């Protein structure tokens, strides 16, 4: 058989055509958003022809009062939800990791990850039903707090995962060493566990923020008047005749997401 001599020269990991498919997938994934971004710099207001580059649409978008209101709302909601969910997730991660599982721990784990299992539309209508019930029956309405609470619920599992992963990676003997050196459990946590956990908490917070910032489905169904977020605002702009201003706004949102992903990635690499 002539094959054997040739075979060792072949990279045995190579499969023909796979590289092509991989590159094709990358193109598919990036082409639309690249085009979107490209046209946001279009100096004319045509959407099918690139005339020149200008920042005029960004100017227009950023000058837009409604855009600012939406941005402000988004910031309030997302930052609040991030802080709350990260704190809850950190506590939960500390409570469910690195020890003999306590009774009901698996159930707790499932509850924490529940928002990931349920399709968003179902969560959205359920939340809507819940808050309207609260308002009509008990006259309780938290205003924008409704949205913050709704966001917090689905942000918790996203914050929880990286924190838990980081905690499990941490060397247990470090806390033993701290105790050996006269640190009470609280001191050991404050001086050893927490500083080392910080990269995980940061990554978790970053994920929670992106997920909240980008949310559309739940926000759309739950938001009341005056609670427009950036994704909702963009959605309202689709109904109108489309201008490149829309491109600019979309690109701004994309830029924020990409920024956070890169930040998470760099934080994760730094602790190597």
């Amino acid at each position, binding site marked *: 058989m002539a094959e054997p001599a040739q075979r060792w020269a072949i990279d045995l990991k190579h499969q023909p055509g796979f590289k092509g498919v991989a590159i094709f997938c990358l193109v598919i994934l990036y082409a639309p958003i690249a085009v979107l971004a490209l046209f946001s710099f279009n100096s004319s207001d045509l959407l099918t022809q690139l005339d020149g580059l200008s920042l005029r649409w960004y100017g227009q978008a950023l000058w837009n009062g409604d855009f600012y209101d939406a941005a402000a709302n988004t910031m309030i909601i997302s930052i609040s939800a991030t802080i709350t969910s990260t704190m809850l997730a950190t506590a939960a991660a500390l409570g469910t990791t690195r020890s003999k599982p306590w009774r009901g721990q698996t159930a707790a784990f499932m509850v924490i990850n529940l928002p990931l299992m349920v399709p968003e539309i179902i969560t959205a209508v359920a939340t809507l039903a819940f808050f309207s019930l609260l308002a009509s029956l008990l006259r309780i309405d938290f205003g924008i707090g409704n949205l913050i609470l709704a966001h917090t619920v689905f942000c918790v599992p996203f914050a929880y995962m990286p924190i838990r992963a980081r905690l499990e990676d941490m060397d247990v003997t470090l806390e033993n*060493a701290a*105790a050996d050196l006269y640190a009470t459990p609280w001191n050991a946590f404050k001086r050893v566990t927490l500083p080392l956990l910080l990269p995980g908490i940061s990554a978790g917070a970053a994920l929670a923020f992106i997920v909240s910032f980008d949310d559309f489905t739940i926000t759309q169904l739950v938001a009341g008047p005056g609670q427009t977020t950036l994704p909702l605002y963009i959605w309202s702009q689709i109904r109108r005749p489309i201008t490149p201003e829309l491109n600019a706004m979309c690109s701004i949102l994309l830029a924020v997401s990409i920024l956070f992903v890169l930040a998470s990635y760099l934080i994760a690499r730094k602790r190597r």
Partner: protein
Amino acid sequence: MLEIGNVEKVFGQGTGAFRALTEISLEIRTNEFFTLLGPSGCGKTTLLRMIAGFEHPTSGMIKLDGEDIAAKPPFQRPVNTVFQNYALFPHMSVAGNIAFGLEMLGRPKGEVAATVGDMLRLVRMEELKDRKTSQISGGQQQRVALARALAPRPKVLLLDEPLSALDLKLRKEMQIELKRLQHETGITFVFVTHDQEEALTMSDRIAVMSAGHILQVGTPRQIYDHPANRFVANFIGDTNFLEGRIVSRGAGGARVELASKAMIEASLPDGATTADAVTLVVRPEHAWLVPGAGQGVLDGVIDNVVYLGTDTHVHLNVDGGAAFIVRRQNRRDSVEELAPGMRASLVIPDGLAQILRD
């Protein structure tokens, strides 16, 4: 003084229960370099962790200077540990690590700084004091771990196989270093290792352990020259075993008849054995070979001569089946008169063979 009284440790319950330690009783004196020696799984690390406070005894007592510490959590015991993987805090500098224990004890800043300085000098790491612990070598990390554990001046320092990750030359240096530190600080060291040579080199006293039991406690000399049982004899140094039968007993010794019908005067440590059939232990350096037959207690054929630089080991196939190793130091004027295939006689002087108690 550290007293350990009848400590037992059982992991798990019912049929899955594992008996890690059985009837452990020890008295470790102040300012002593005490070693727990044994193979993996013998329980030495479990015992160490129990002294540190990371395990609690299923039953038994642990007292330090008269005070019962068995019920206390680790951060309330004046005992510090040098961990096998060093467990240095990666987010603190060398100086930060060393200062940690003192800070936890609430010592004033001036005192902390002064002590850290002293410790750095003690382990010769002054220049690296601001380095992150991930940026120093293994040997340096080890010294930092030591300094960190010594800084709070504990009553007892526990060392869990601290030299196992170091290469041979560094190990030997650190052995001397540790001995020096123990003398200078006057702190009781409890050292865990599976390396019998290390134990013999460094210890004031050794406890040999196996399968959760303590087999023998004594000075290195006592353990080497008078092993209490077969396991200890085998574990410490090279050993030869000979079968024989007691013919007559005397004070501190007995006359034993070997398989070859030759008689040998063997020593018998305290605790006389009542049986007549005994096993003798002979250290390789306590015997020598003479070419030819009939000139010693046993005859045999030389199987192998191994040159080891400082010594030569001669492997003898004794007539009747057993193997015997003889060791002699190489001197400049040594002549190779022994070669494989030759017949030789084994000479064992009086009193150097020892009767084993089991």
